[in-house]
């Protein structure tokens, strides 16, 4: 019995440690007081403020445009890349496999600076385009690694079985391969999306005028202290990400129903 109580206590502590900050943040976004110290009363004023703050709204739209475009592009490219790296043998294949991990492990600041120098060198104007490009480039390795983990010998046999039953390459890909690697594609896309959504460092280097993103905006806002409208803003972000993540997990769950009980 004692053992069980201790176990529950530890679980409770971990959960509190993980979620208390988030709960406080959400609570304070409804606080009438401007200070994040005492909860004085309930209000939706901060949310109203948000919708009147044009800079914030613009950053909000930018962030999601960047996140969605870069997620879709990097997922498509990364999936194709993973398939290519799995199915074909070519020179320097193992070297390319190794190269994939470098963007994952090098410090973001290095990646940010190097991307910036590329843009300067090629005289690309910093803005939405460079931001999207940067987000695509750091997301692709994550997608490739995630998709690649779903390949297996049995997938090869499923593809052969499909061909044997008369399905051409395109049909085999859409009817067999894609549904089978879907879990990897979805988790790759989820990773790409969340990475893009909260990226500060790389965006800091590659953003230009008129391409402010939410994380950058929040970062500049908290230089003068955390105001309740930041709380409201982050609560909204939390909500949106959660909705997207849950729906992705839901799709994934449905796709692989029956596959593994």
């Amino acid at each position, binding site marked *: 019995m004692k053992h069980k109580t201790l176990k529950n206590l530890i679980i409770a502590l971990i959960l509190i440690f993980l979620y208390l900050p988030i709960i406080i943040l959400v609570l304070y976004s409804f606080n009438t007081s401007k200070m994040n110290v005492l909860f004085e009363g309930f209000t939706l004023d901060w949310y109203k403020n948000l919708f009147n703050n044009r800079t914030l709204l613009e950053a909000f739209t930018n962030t999601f445009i960047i996140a969605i475009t870069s997620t879709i592009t990097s997922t498509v490219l990364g999936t194709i890349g993973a398939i290519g790296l799995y199915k074909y043998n070519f020179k320097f294949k193992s070297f390319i496999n190794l190269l994939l991990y470098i963007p994952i492990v090098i410090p973001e600041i290095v990646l940010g600076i190097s991307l910036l120098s590329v843009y300067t060198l090629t005289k690309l104007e910093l803005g939405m385009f460079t931001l999207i490009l940067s987000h695509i480039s750091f997301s692709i390795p994550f997608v490739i690694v995630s998709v690649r983990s779903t390949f297996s010998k*049995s997938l090869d*046999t*499923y593809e*052969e*079985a*499909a*061909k*044997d*039953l*008369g*399905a*051409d390459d395109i*049909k085999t890909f859409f*009817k*067999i391969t894609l*549904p*089978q690697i879907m879990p990897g594609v979805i988790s790759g896309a989820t990773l790409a999306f969340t990475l893009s959504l909260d990226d500060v460092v790389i965006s800091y280097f590659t953003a230009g005028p008129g391409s402010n993103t939410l994380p950058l905006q929040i970062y500049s806002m908290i230089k003068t202290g955390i105001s309740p409208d930041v709380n409201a803003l982050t609560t909204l972000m939390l909500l949106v990400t959660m909705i997207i993540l849950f729906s992705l997990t839901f799709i994934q769950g449905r*796709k*692989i*129903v*029956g*596959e*593994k*009980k």
Partner: protein
Amino acid sequence: MKTVVKLENISKSYEKGKYVIKNLSLDVYEGEFLTLLGSSGCGKTTILRMISGLEHVTDGKVYIDDKDVTEVDPTKREVNTIFQNFALFPHMTVYENVSFGLKMKKINKQEIKERVTEVLKLVELDGFEERYPSQLSGGQQQRVAIARGIIMNPKVLLLDESLASLDLKLKKMMQIELKKIQKKLGITFIYVTHDQDEALTMSDRIIIIEKGVIKQEGSPKEIYEHPNSVFVADFIGESNIFKSTIIHIDENKTIVDFDGKHFSIPRNEKDEIGKMVNIMVRPENVTISTEPFQNAIKGVIKTIVYDGSITKLFVDNEGDFDLRVTVKGSVDYKEGDTTYIIVDDKDIVAIREENHEE
């Protein structure tokens, strides 16, 4: 008999100069149950894959129904494969799996439905349409795989060790069931296995393959009773093989000597006195006795294995060679007993191997 599949001098090599299959020719007749039998790595699966088109031939030609399909894509060949682990699409229901091939052929929905219903009835799986493969037992999955293949009305159904993953009892049941389905549909089956029991039970004809070359072909009875090489005799069933020497040649029989005992075998024109001949006798064809007998081989029982309907005895002849004896039911002998083994001339199969390349 009409030939449905014809392999003409086919070879397969993945590395230059190294052949997995070398210059192999084979005719498969309409409606037969043909088994390619061989140990793992002998190239039997490669042969199957070259018929289905999943593997290219390095040399030679493949004909299906008299048409040269050597360069034809697997999607366009009128053969279907049942894969080793069935390869049922896990994200599709039984219905979707079985109808997959017909959908690819763009057959109308109504006809697909009728044919799926019909074929599922045949494999006794009606009512399982909406299940996913993971919700089925091994035997049921096997039957879905068969249904998915035969719904296409293939000229030939290729089965790649399709029973290997089932447990023994289910395997025995499915062997009989497969044979029944094959008889009913009249489709040619080419079955690949390393399991000699399975081959003997199901086949009309067995092709024994070793190192990419056909060693022997014939009905199960022919192969069991008249193996043409030590390899085949050893591979199919249990056997006692002795090296004997020709000591006398008559008009129509040859006398050989083995361990001082003399046996008579039918004469072969190439027989010469002093030449070595392998003689083979199946363990169930020898008689064992405790009484000394003329021309009987003396030995001591080393091990007795009771196996229900039969008992297996391993007899040691002073360390020179081991003899296997199989008797029906149980025996009164003990391990260590001295026995005499009588081999009748008519049960002896002489194996004269002409080519000693190895």
